[in-house]
């Protein structure tokens, strides 16, 4: 146990307070544009502070720091505790949050009613605040409180786009979410009942005692089961995913990006912390909960993709893909080994950088094709907005797991974890990984090809000309070449003409966001080793 002695170790606490204050200030700023700028400033500041924290932690040898708020001891005070893993997660979350907002900025101004836009950023601030708190907290009850704040903020950013669809989606989301946090609350209150603690470290000791003495065996199983189940519902593990496609598919671009990329992960990080800091992986495995998570994860991987395959609505398709990716993460936890958890943590990051990129680029592509969500109708949209097209392509390939991109190292570590596990894990996980790769390819590739193919109308004229050229060919043999060439030239000119006409305005913020997302995606895919080292170090001191 290290006491906070360095000034930098106050930063995580400042981050939480700063975002909270930022949220409180927002209602007083009527102008959405200014609110957005302030919000970006806060995110940047928080990100910067987390860089400092991470550097300081690494300089100090990758230790964990416990920080008592106001220096009050346990029952009255509140603790946060952070190590390298928490710091890097918080840092990446800030980056993704900022880029998601920039990437969907155009849609925010379009979808959210004027005059209410500042409130949207209020919710974003609260969301970041609660995510940071979930990452940093060392107290189960604080965790619960921020889960609720998170839920409310998340529901609000879904509903911010004013349509019947989003209201229905929000209500479903709210009910399922509250069910999840209710279960979580039941779990921790029972835990308090049998141990008398809410802080994580003393909890670990008393649970250890309970396990060795064999007392409360069944309640303990129920408690851990309830906590896992609550988290699983809130992060849309397969059979509990029904709220996700609606909420993520209908919300405005940035909201979908943030919900998919970050909000789902906040709870999982809390669960990982609970596993390591409270329950210990050994007890988890003994109670069979690891195996249950593994099975649910694997089923989710496959079923999420299968549902995505059937989906025509591009954003719902990406949303179902998130269900599959959450399956991956739970599968990593279910592997029950350090490698598995490392893979899960890395996948949290790789998915956090990839999915918002997909959502933002899909938003731009939808915009380019006249607000049409059917992915068949997106034909040719990438030609109008090539940057979005490239981002979607890279995102899709990364999800499939092509080397050099962020999805590949996850796949590498998941399979390593599986091979080092027992026979059951080896067989099930490797098969699931292979099948899931194929399924991912099956829905991403057609979408990618479709968006890079010129429109039907152009296509039809193409075919027609081609027929003509061919006919001419038959008649004149080699002499028709000049004719064919002429036709080809005319076609080329026409292509350009149309493109110039329909080109949508690509905003600077979108370019910045996409470039940073693309760069981080490749960075994760290529230089994953240092990151893995930090994660490994972080897990070892969790």
């Amino acid at each position, binding site marked *: 146990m290290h006491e906070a002695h360095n000034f930098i170790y106050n930063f995580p606490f400042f981050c939480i307070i700063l975002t909270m204050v930022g949220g409180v200030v927002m209602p007083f700023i009527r102008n959405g544009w200014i609110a957005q700028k302030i919000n970006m400033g806060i995110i940047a500041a928080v990100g910067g502070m987390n860089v400092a924290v991470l550097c300081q932690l690494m300089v100090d040898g990758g230790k964990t720091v416990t920080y008592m708020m106001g220096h009050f001891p346990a029952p009255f005070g509140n603790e946060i505790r952070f190590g390298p893993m928490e710091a890097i997660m918080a840092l990446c979350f800030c980056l993704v949050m900022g880029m998601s907002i920039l990437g969907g900025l155009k849609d925010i101004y379009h979808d959210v009613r004027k005059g209410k836009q500042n409130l949207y950023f209020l919710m974003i601030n609260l969301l970041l605040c609660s995510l940071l708190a979930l990452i940093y907290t060392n107290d189960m009850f604080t965790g619960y409180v921020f889960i609720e704040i998170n839920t409310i903020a998340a529901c609000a950013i879904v509903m911010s786009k004013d349509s019947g669809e989003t209201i229905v989606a929000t209500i479903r989301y709210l009910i399922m979410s509250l069910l999840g946090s209710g279960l979580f609350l039941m779990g921790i209150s029972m835990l308090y009942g049998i141990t008398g603690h809410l802080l994580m470290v003393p909890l670990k000791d008393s649970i250890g005692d309970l396990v060795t003495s064999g007392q409360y065996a069944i309640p303990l199983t129920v408690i851990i089961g309830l906590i896992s189940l609550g988290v699983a519902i809130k992060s849309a593990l397969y059979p509990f995913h029904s709220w996700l496609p609606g909420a993520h598919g209908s919300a405005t671009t940035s909201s979908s990006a943030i919900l998919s990329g970050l909000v789902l992960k906040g709870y999982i990080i809390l669960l990982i912390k609970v596993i390591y800091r409270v329950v210990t992986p050994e007890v988890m495995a003994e109670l069979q909960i690891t195996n249950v998570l593994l099975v649910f994860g694997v089923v989710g991987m496959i079923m999420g993709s299968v549902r995505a395959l059937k989906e025509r609505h591009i954003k719902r398709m990406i949303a179902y893909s998130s269900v599959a990716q959450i399956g991956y993460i739970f599968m990593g936890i279910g592997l029950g080994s350090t490698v598995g958890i490392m893979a899960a943590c890395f996948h949290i990051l790789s998915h956090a950088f990839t999915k918002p990129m997909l959502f933002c680029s899909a938003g731009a592509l939808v915009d380019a094709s006249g607000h049409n969500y059917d992915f068949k109708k997106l034909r040719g949209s990438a030609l109008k907005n090539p940057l979005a097209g490239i981002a979607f392509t890279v995102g899709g390939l990364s999800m499939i797991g*092509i080397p050099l991109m962020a999805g590949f190292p996850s796949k590498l570590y998941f399979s390593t974890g599986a091979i080092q596990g027992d026979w059951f894990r080896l067989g099930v996980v490797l098969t699931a990984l292979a099948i899931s790769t194929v399924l991912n390819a099956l829905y991403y590739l057609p979408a990618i090809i479709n968006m890079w193919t010129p429109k039907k109308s152009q296509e039809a004229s193409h075919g027609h000309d081609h027929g003509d050229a061919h006919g001419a060919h038959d008649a004149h043999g080699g002499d028709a070449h000049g004719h064919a060439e002429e036709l080809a030239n005319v076609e*080329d000119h026409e292509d350009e003409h149309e493109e110039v006409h329909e080109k949508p305005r690509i905003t600077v913020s979108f370019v910045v966001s996409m470039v940073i997302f693309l760069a981080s995606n490749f960075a994760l895919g290529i230089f994953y080793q240092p990151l893995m080292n930090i994660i490994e170090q972080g897990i070892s001191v969790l």
Partner: protein
Amino acid sequence: MSFLLCIPIILPIVAGLAMLIAKPKKRIVREVYVAGVIILDMILSLIFIFTVPDQKFTLVQFTDTISITLKVDGMSTIFGMIVSILWVVATFYSFEYMKHEGKENKFFSFFTMSMGVVMGIAFSANLITMYLFYELLTMATLPLVMHSMDQKACAAGKKYVIFSITGASFGFVAIMLLMNYGVSLDFVYGGILDMAKVGGMEHLLLAGFILAFFGFGVKAAIFPFYSWLPSAGVAPTPVSALLHAVAVVNAGIFAITRVIYYSFGADFLRGSWAQTVVMVATIITIVFGSSMALRTKHIKRRLAYSTVSNLSYMLFSLSLMTPAGMVGGLTHMLFHSVLKITLFFVAGAIIYKTGREYVGEVEGFGRSMPITMICFTVCSLGLIGLPPLMGFSSKWHIASAAVESGNPLAYAGIGALIVSALLTTLYLVIIIIKAYFPRKDLDVKTLNKDVKDPNMLMTIPMIALSAVSIIIGVYPTPFIRVFETIAGGLF
């Protein structure tokens, strides 16, 4: 100097991307550009193949054990040579052929990029690098298969992607097993398994080998994963000729050679149940492919089924798990590439000039398209294995390797070779007979009024390749020497 190794890979990819953006409007500009890039790339590849052997260049270092690394060794030499030379030939052929397919900018961009990707497979120094380029190959060639973007092409493309990616993802599982039970992922002749770790886990690794064989075998059209290849025949003929008779399918063969001889090691696999499984599959494919070819009336599809059968000749030979078997497989890889690309060129020339696609429609072409049909005849006889033409010596090597191996199943394989040779004769000679001896009552003159040989851009590649096939067929020794050194693990 070793960093130069990445040039043959990166140059075409960058050039292809540049073309995708620039979209040259004039045909002449495009043709000079594409021909320039591809010829330059061939020259560079050949220079590197012959001057910088045994040097490694690491493009990206992921971790201590995993990296994207390039290296030229014996296998790279063969595959790189076949691919780079035939690519140039096919490029000139496509200049003419693609005039009637349209969308040439897109076609040539991906055509050029694919070359870089295939060179990447040839030069890869470890399994991860090969996996990367293997996946990229699927992506780069997909737009070529779906070129016409009509319903049939899209269906074929979809099938191609599903098959290839499924294969690669199961291959990846095997790579992961090798990573955990091997010393490293580099290609080392004789295998990389760490016997201390393997102890007790042999069956797991053999299962992994089966996954790798069938996974990478998808691109080599092994039964029962062959069906994408005939479907992919809807692609423009240069694609069928170059990619689906040479580059892509040979990439499959190449990958399997790497897996058998350079990763698991032939010694580990020889005599195991896994060897039996893969040999049975190849024997079935040999006979099955030939019989399907005989049943198919569409010329390009017939040739595609013939490819299915011939690829399994190579796989059968490789799966003997002996150096002699490797020589036989590599010999057939080279010879089949030259022969089959020419046969496809002929089929393409017929489609290009007349639009006819079926076997029955070529009657009397011996007179109307003399050059084309002579090339077809030479290469058909070569593929049948008539001594002293090309196919004879490769099949001879396969058969003698099979006898030497002493594996009882190998005799069944020889039987399959004989049956398949008979079928090959039937399905190719029928076309020749129709072309030279039309039915008496048919008015060939009016029917084939406008039919003539295509222009130089198409005939010269065909003539050159046929000539090469005769020359190599008569003097195969130097090539076989090279293959023997490679299979001896010396180069």
